[in-house]
């Protein structure tokens, strides 16, 4: 009896997990041709390091909001204030901004030493996934 309950529960859990898989949001990914420690991603996107050249997505886009909230851990306003300080003091140049995952993929694939992020990790193919978010 106990065994039956366990099996039923397990089976239910499995079915539930499988059923919900397609419904789960696809996860975003930080991608590059290079391998770096994920802790350095924040430094690069906060303009403190140029060990890789970063490419950004459009301001206000869902993927950028998710990246900024989950990877950088700060709000768009806070990041804007931080960057305004860097830009107007010549400490960093504005990051290149492109319009889609495809444009990020194309840029990162054709330029070694660059880093980008996309909304769908499964599109990364041959590129290194440094972090999923």
């Amino acid at each position: 009896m106990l065994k039956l309950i366990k099996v039923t529960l397990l089976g239910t859990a499995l079915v539930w997990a499988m059923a919900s898989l397609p419904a789960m949001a696809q996860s975003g990914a930080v991608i590059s041709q290079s391998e770096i420690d994920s802790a350095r991603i924040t430094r690069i996107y906060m303009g403190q390091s140029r060990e890789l050249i970063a490419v950004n997505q459009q301001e206000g886009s869902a993927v950028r909001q998710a990246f900024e909230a989950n990877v950088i851990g700060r709000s768009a306003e806070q990041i804007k204030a931080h960057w305004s300080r860097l830009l107007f003091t010549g400490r960093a140049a504005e990051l290149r901004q492109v319009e889609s995952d495809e444009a990020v993929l194309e840029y990162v694939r054709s330029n070694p030493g660059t880093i980008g992020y996309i909304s769908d990790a499964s599109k990364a193919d041959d590129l290194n996934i440094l972090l999923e978010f």
Partner: protein
Amino acid sequence: MQRVFKLGLLSGLMLAGSAAHANIEWSGFANIGAGFTTGSDEQAFGYEDSVDFKPDTLFALQGRAQLADDLSITTQLMSRGEDNFDLGVEWAYLQYQLNEAWTINAGKLRLPLYNYSDSLDVAYSYHWLRTPQAVYRVPFDNFTGASVQHNAFLGDSMLSTQFIVGNFNDSVEVADSQAETDLENLVGVSSSLNYHSWTVRGGFFYSSDVSVELQTPEFNGLMMQLSGADFASLADDLRVDEREGTFASIGLNFDNFDWVFASEYTELEVQDSFLAKQRSFYASLGKRFGSWMPHVTYAGTRDQQADFALATLPEPLAQGVQQLTSSTTQRSNMTSLGLRYDVRAGVAFKFDVTHVDDKALDTRSNVVSFSVQTVF
């Protein structure tokens, strides 16, 4: 010479712009502020009791031309309300990126005296409506020369150091009047260490020859009277003529994107002159609630009046010297309550009430100000 240099940089920027206009980036920022004092005889931060827009209003446009991967030219054109919106070249410099760690700048640059010197005009980048005026009171912001910037990562911390060398020459406000001011052989270093939410910063600056040519009738009259009464050496001692000057600052900041704490202490001294030894401080605490950020700041000045042996001086002359040295001596406390509201990324609305208790003049005033600050 400076003008030729500026023009050279400007035309260089234009040339770079026309040759490769894809490589030129324009950005800008603006502060539109309004304020007033609450009492009819009160004056503070450039405000009086009728609403004024000039003291905290400015517009700036910055152009950056990337000449090569490691070489760029930047100019910043600015129109300040306090200068009747005359358009001026705030910065103009050539930047060479030696490698990942070292950057060299040359031209007309911001003097990094304070923690917020670099972004002083980009008020959007900090929580205050204006930086604490008790501390941010050196009457010039820029110099002509070169700076070397170094960034080092040590584990989780970042050490950022800037060395500067150059000079300064312009007319600035000293003792409530314009004075031709000259700083020769200006050298300095400022360094900040950032570890997670904490930043400590220190700076030290030195000029071998500081000269301030105060030309008020009172000052000239006193100098003539002293010389005429056989106190010419005292007159020479009072003058700021090729004196050594030092400026030192320390600061501690905390920002975990929830709570913000900022503090600085500064000392400015020009040896053997009528200028007071300036000592200033502030401490500020703020907390973010979504787009809202209320904050409170306490700041003060504790200047030391220049001391001269006046016992042998005739009474009116002693009084004149006393008046001169006390005119540059500030003793005040300033308490500010402020609110920042982020309208959206790139636009902030700010409100500030500051109570100024001037102990040297024995006056008290309240300044109320509003501002919309933006970057674009």
